[in-house]
């Protein structure tokens, strides 16, 4: 069996963390490094972490790049670039180092904290500050970046191009100084750490964040109206969408609160325009009454919920997958609906697009569960796939004499008239109603409409996209959403060690494709359900749906730290199997 040190990150790609106190420019340096890696043909991922301060607090950029797709951060970092030592202990948990790691730092920054000395990492000192202060307005992050590029084996030309790209908005003067600082750092010490052969410039590469990917997916799905209220970590979806919706002839309305935003998109969708909002836990909580209205009135809407640490205000800037319960079960009454989760940044385009189209086609609500780590990370990837189907809302443009908005049909979907259509007038209602939409408290109408709303989902053929399934063997890891990345990494490491494992990464959580899942589990002797929360929410949900054998095990770890491959590998070790 594997063990953690064999499975260290350096086998596959290269992991770098850049840390610094407020204003030191750690994140900018990280972005430049990532873009440079992209220039060299690598794929990659960059996540960020920040202290509690709004601005000016310490922050860290964590990057991993590789010739292959990068699914998650590794167990350890190859390189730590410490711009200074202020509050470095805040990040110690997030940036595991080992004796195989290298620390790049400035002797002028003072004593290396004991915390970091203890892991036995090699230390390479570069006088960041001396170099930087030799230049007018010179910044030490750029010096450090130059030195880091050598360690990573990235070419100077790529670094330079990337500096230009990332800093172009700041003016030529800034760019020039940065380039000089970069050069000083680059030329100081020529020992590369690891040379991963650069794949060379690749076509078809994208650089995109998860939040942008969700935004793009929404537009591809047809969304042309968004109403929303800002909230971390979802705001960037809205900030990306607002100007772009305008250019596409749509619009974004900043609402007074989430009660307004959900009702606004319901109103807009009633008007015929595919509509969406994005929020996070506290905002989703405020939307559940509105979601019920959309569901009963069969007005399609999509809500992207970018999860953060909960419950309550919780840990707003850190990731967790703990809103599955509210997403699945949070409505009062019997309220079946769609819940989806993107499996990676790359997949967020497809999943969001599909979610919107399914909501439109099935005339129901679609909840997309992204999370902070997926949303706020930047990835270098191959161009993302799209949803090939073109699902649309069934619109009745010339209703006959006896138009019934909630007509019972074969597929339980009733064509909808849009305001402006003569002869198709009806009143959409959150009260239970008969097929015409007239409020009714009769048992027969209630049952009919409950059945309709359930069956249109249950009977729909979702095809093969409900999950990504890979691998063979007798052990299986089930996961969902962004945890798919680390789980796939685990499977890859197992394969490298000659072990087999099946991964089932659920993209469609509700309605659960129970039969398909059971089929995929046939012959599995060990089943582990992996997710990033405290309660094992997916694990219990799968049991609720009768989809798991009693022997299945749960590995649930709450945020804010990411799930690491080593942790999952340990849970799979034979002595942990029963």
């Amino acid at each position: 069996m594997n063990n953690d040190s064999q499975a260290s990150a350096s086998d596959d790609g290269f992991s770098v963390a850049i840390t610094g106190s407020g204003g030191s420019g750690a994140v900018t340096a990280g972005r430049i490094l990532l873009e440079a890696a992209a220039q060299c043909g690598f794929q990659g991922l960059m996540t960020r972490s920040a202290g509690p301060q709004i601005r000016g607090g310490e922050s860290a950029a964590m990057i991993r790049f590789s010739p292959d797709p990068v699914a998650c951060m590794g167990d350890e970092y190859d390189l730590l670039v410490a711009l200074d030592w202020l509050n470095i202990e805040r990040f110690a948990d997030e940036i595991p180092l080992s004796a195989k790691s290298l620390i790049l730092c400035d002797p002028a920054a003072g004593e290396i904290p004991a915390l970091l000395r203890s892991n036995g990492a090699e230390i390479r000192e570069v006088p960041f500050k001396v170099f930087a202060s030799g230049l007018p307005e010179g910044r030490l992050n750029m010096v450090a970046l130059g030195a880091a590029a050598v360690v990573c084996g990235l070419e100077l030309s790529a670094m330079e191009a990337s500096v230009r790209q990332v800093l172009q908005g700041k003016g030529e003067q800034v760019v020039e100084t940065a380039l000089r600082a970069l050069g000083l750092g680059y030329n100081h010490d020529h020992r590369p750490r690891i040379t991963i052969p650069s794949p060379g410039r690749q076509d078809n590469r994208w650089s995109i964040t998860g939040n942008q990917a969700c935004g793009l997916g929404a537009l591809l799905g047809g969304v042309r109206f968004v109403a929303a209220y800002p909230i971390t970590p979802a705001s960037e979806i809205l900030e990306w969408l607002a100007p772009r919706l305008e250019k596409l002839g749509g619009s974004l309305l900043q609402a007074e609160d989430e009660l307004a935003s959900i009702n606004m998109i319901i109103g807009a969708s009633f008007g015929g325009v595919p509509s969406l909002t994005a929020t996070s836990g506290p905002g989703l909580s405020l939307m559940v009454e509105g979601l019920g209205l959309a569901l009963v009135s069969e007005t399609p809407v999509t809500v992207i919920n970018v999860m953060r640490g909960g419950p309550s205000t919780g840990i707003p800037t850190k990731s967790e997958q703990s809103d599955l319960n509210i997403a699945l079960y949070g409505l009062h009454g019997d309220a079946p609906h769609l819940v989806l989760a993107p499996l990676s940044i790359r997949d967020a385009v497809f999943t969001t697009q599909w979610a919107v189209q399914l909501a439109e086609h099935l005339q129901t609500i679609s909840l997309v569960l992204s999370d902070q780590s997926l949303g706020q990370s930047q990835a270098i990837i191959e161009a993302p796939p799209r949803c090939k189907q073109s699902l649309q809302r069934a619109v009745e443009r010339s209703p006959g004499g006896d138009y019934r908005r909630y007509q019972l049909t074969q597929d339980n979907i009733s064509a909808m008239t849009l305001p402006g259509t003569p002869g198709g007038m009806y009143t959409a209602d959150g009260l239970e109603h008969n097929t015409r939409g007239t409020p009714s408290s009769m048992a027969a109408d209630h049952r009919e409409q409950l059945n309709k709303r359930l069956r249109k989902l249950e009977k729909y053929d979702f095809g093969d996209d409900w999950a990504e399934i890979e691998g063979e063997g007798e052990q299986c890891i089930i996961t969902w959403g962004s945890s798919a990345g680390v789980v796939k990494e685990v499977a890859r490491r197992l394969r490298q060690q000659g072990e087999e494992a099946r991964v089932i990464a659920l993209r469609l959580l509700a309605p659960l494709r129970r039969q398909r899942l059971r089929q995929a589990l046939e012959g599995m002797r060990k089943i582990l359900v992996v997710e990033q929360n405290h309660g094992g929410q997916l694990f219990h949900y799968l049991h609720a749906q009768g989809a798991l054998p009693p022997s299945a095990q749960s590995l649930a770890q709450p945020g804010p730290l990411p799930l690491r491959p080593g942790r999952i590998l340990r849970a799979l070790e034979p002595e942990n199997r029963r």
Partner: protein
Amino acid sequence: MAVPAPKAKNYKSDIKPVWCPGCGHFAVLAALTKAMAHLGLIKENVAVVSGIGCSSRLPAYIDSYGFHGIHGRALAAASGLKAARPDLTVIVAGGDGDGFSIGGNHFLHACRRNMDMTYIVMDNEVYGMTKGQASPTTRPTWSDSKMTPHGTGIPRFNPAAIALAAGAGFIARGYAGEPSELTRLLVEAIQHPGFAFVQVLSGCVTFRPDQRGWKELVHPFIDDLPTEDRTKAAQIIQADDGKATGVIYAVRFPVWQPENPKEVELSDLEEEFHR
């Protein structure tokens, strides 16, 4: 307005109201359909949006598109609809509880936002549908509700004052017992470009039988109204006994309406991600 108008009854749906016999809301329904007829509105181009309450049942009784939403959120749903569908005539209807209690925040922000819609609040100073509790407009000493056995003890919410302070450009008050004046007010409100707020005194015969006495109390505003002068409007509203009817304030503020011509294709937007 000289166009031969269709009949009010053409705008009524075939659904029988759940309202108590004698409820003021019948008169509001009648006045609204008359106003629609008078304006010759094309019914499929009208959407009537509401929240929850006796008053909020109104959309289903009108033969146009309707949206009967959830309690307090009518203005939000209507704003989204209007933003997405500027071509529609959007009318929002509700009660004093729906609009001023649970819906107060949306009222504030809808006044500010000034989208082109008409907001009719059938004010009976009570929660009719939940069987008679005090609403924000109930007088502080009204003690018929067991939930507030000595009255609320809280001064009444002044809808016109709030609308003015929040930035509404059209503020009127009507009375269900004066149907032709009410029809006229609604016609003006619908014609007003921007957010038009009409408070209608619409008695609840069941839980506020005392409101039958309104007939004697209601009177037109004596001043020369409507005014475009905000200071004057503020004075009128402050001096007002809450029973005067008419259009108080009417001024055209810029209407907020997103209308963006399509400039690019989606594929153009993807370029930013290419490396």
